[in-house]
């Protein structure tokens, strides 16, 4: 059982419901309007890597489907979702798209299922308008279950979203300049709590972590992580052991979603749209490859990184299509790269350990 899913998470969620009457929604990866849900007294709990043995999933999903989707399905089929009041499926990729329909049309888990389509690049005027309409539409649908969206609440939570983003940006910035004294394991354990904590609890947690971790950590060799999510966490522990510091990341579950630039709009709908259209380049929104490469290079330069680790979930098509271009671009700049493809929650195999150690030996 990983630390992110310890029993205290369930206790926390139950307490949130008890004390504040919050509705607990299971949300699948990756892009969704968190502030909108918060404003409607919904607490989103992201489903990335529940610590389950895959036993039922293969009755529904072929072997060539990624384990994030398999684990998500397993979570529902094994009835682990008893404390949830509903599900939200963003339109992330083909597998999640069809997963949403398998659940909604075939499995019928007895809980409301919602879907959020977000516009894909290239962005045009129509994309902006559509995104705002999607927000309104989702709010209307959710409203039938949890009560209408209150505009003032939405304003407040849009601001809270900005507060969260601000602390995240600062954390990442300190880490990149070697001024954050925290292990890789600690860093990710902390920020991954954003996957379920309410902002009223998340903001103090992040701020405390920030204050407690100020300090120099310039002695270790920095690398950049790019990919989906930092699982299994044993790899982070191994990097700590090998005195490798993650300087910055381009991970879907982390950097790509948390490092949104400050938004200017006062209207919360516009603010959320601004955040969406200005988030870091990502495969789930079809960002051009050139932008992704430039983003990676600026992270390398910003943290003085010596190499880039591609941490891919097996079968993840969006990541794998961009990879050859990115690796070539990095190699041209003389940067060593390592590709590791994993199944979430797997044991650290000998081969994986050897690859990582050999990469570190290369950097020396």
């Amino acid at each position, binding site marked *: 059982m990983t630390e992110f899913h310890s029993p205290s998470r369930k206790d926390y969620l139950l307490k949130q419901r008890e004390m504040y009457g919050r509705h607990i929604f299971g949300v699948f990866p990756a892009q969704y309007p968190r502030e909108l849900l918060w404003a409607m007294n919904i607490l989103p709990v992201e489903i990335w890597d529940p610590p389950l043995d895959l036993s039922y999933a293969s*009755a*529904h*999903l*072929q072997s*060539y*489907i990624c384990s994030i989707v398999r684990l998500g399905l397993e979570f529902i089929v094994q009835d682990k979702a008893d404390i949830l009041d509903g599900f939200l*499926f963003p*339109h992330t*990729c*083909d*597998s999640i*798209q*069809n*997963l*949403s*329909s*398998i659940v*909604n*049309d*075939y*499995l019928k888990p007895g809980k409301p299922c919602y*879907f959020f*389509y977000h*516009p*894909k*690049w*290239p962005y*045009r*005027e*129509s*994309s902006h*308008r*559509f995104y705002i*309409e*999607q927000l309104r*539409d989702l709010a209307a649908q959710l409203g039938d279950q949890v009560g209408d969206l209150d505009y003032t609440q939405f304003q407040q939570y849009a601001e809270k979203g900005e507060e969260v983003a601000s602390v995240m940006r600062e954390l990442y910035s300190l880490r990149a300049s070697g001024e954050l004294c925290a292990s890789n394991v600690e860093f990710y354990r902390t920020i991954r709590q954003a996957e379920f904590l309410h902002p009223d609890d998340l903001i103090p947690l992040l701020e405390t972590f920030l204050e407690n971790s100020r300090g120099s950590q310039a002695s270790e060799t920095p690398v950049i992580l790019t990919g989906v999510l930092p699982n299994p966490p044993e790899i982070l522990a191994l990097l700590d052991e090998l005195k490798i510091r993650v300087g910055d990341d381009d991970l879907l579950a982390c950097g790509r979603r948390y490092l949104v630039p400050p938004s200017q709009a006062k209207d919360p709908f516009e603010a959320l749209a601004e955040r969406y259209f200005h988030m870091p380049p990502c*495969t789930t929104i*079809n960002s*051009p*490859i*050139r932008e992704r490469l430039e983003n990676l290079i600026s992270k390398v330069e910003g943290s003085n990184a010596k190499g880039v680790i591609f941490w891919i979930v*097996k*079968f993840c*098509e*969006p990541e*794998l*299509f*961009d*990879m*050859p*271009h990115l*690796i*070539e671009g990095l190699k041209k700049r003389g940067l060593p790269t390592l590709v590791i493809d994993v199944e979430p929650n797997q044991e650290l195999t000998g081969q994986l350990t050897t690859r990582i150690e050999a990469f570190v030996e290369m950097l020396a």
Partner: protein
Amino acid sequence: MKDMGVPGIMRFSRMGKKRRPRKKNASLGPPLECNSRLRELMATHYLLSRYAQGAKPVAWVTSGAPVEILRPFGFYTFYPENHGALCGAQKMGPELCAEAEEHGYHQDLCSYARIDLGHYFSGKTPVGRLPKPDLLFASNNICQTVVYWYKALAEYWKIPLILFDTPYNFREISKADISYMVRQLEEMIPLLEQISKRRFRYKRFREIVGIAKEASLTWGEVLSTMKARPSPMTIFDAFTHLAPIVSLRGLPAALEHYRALLAELEKRVAQGVGAIKNERWRLMWDNIAIWYKMRDFANLFAERGMNFVTATYTNAWTETIGYLDETKPFESMAKAYSLVILNNNLDHRLQLMERLIQEFQVDGLVIHSARSCKPYSVGQYDLKRLITERLEIPTVVIEADITDSRAYSEEQAMVRLEAFFETLEG
């Protein structure tokens, strides 16, 4: 300078014909006359590709994209998926995929994409020479993968990519969804004018929409002839005759072809001529074809008196294009393209399949679980379970791939098919 034109065409029209005299399978009925008409049609199309580059603006297009908006600008359209299917049928899948893999593209990626990228790196193709595009035109209504693939191509060639972004039909397509798509079509026009150096002619566009619609409806009638007992065509022939509606949609040639094909099929129905000699069992196929096993499967099933009389794949190009309406071209295109089977929820798919099974009097279902095609394949296991429960017909799943034969195990497939045959016949 070696002119590949004529020898290329000859080689092309020999495709499908035997190199060495191969014994015609005794279980098959007479071949369609329109087969040679089709070969000529596609050969001409590919021949034109040799001269297109430089003479006309060239667009590479995904199979589900609203190509009607491109036609008024005079683009020569090339369909990499069609080319991929061709390579698969010519058994060049593994070779081209390997070229892409050697350049870092993972073997778990869609094999149409790997073949296309393999062609980019090696220049290898069974059809002489492909025209370099000026524009990439994609819609994600069939899958997101085409966009990842085309994005990579856009980066290699440094050319623009236009995406027709179709919201997924989770429950229903809303007015906001339709407006989004209509606006996208309108927004595309300036870029298309710029690349093609032609003004958009609305009247011409409406005509093309009309032609596309008619071709699609005619294709639908072609497929309907297979309701007859015995069916006048096999699904394997239908897969091949899909090429015009996919890649020549909106052009008169596609409509003419289906009119000719329909006439031939209606004649066969009137005369009781079947595609296979002894039609004892009628089957349905789900998912794209296994392109490198078409002939083998046609023979295998025919020998057992089994004919595939319907398929979700062939049906896809008639199911929704009927929504096209020349009087409201943008809006109707948004509807037609966003409601295609792969952009539609699985409840719709289940109902569609049940309807086809009933209308075509299907006795058994063969589901191809295609490694390359996630939108088609994810959900098939539940579909199988539900159809078996509700309609009580034998169903079998074959794990394979559309063009990468290295992912197909003949032994494993045969074991499953044998069991399926026993259930069907027993």
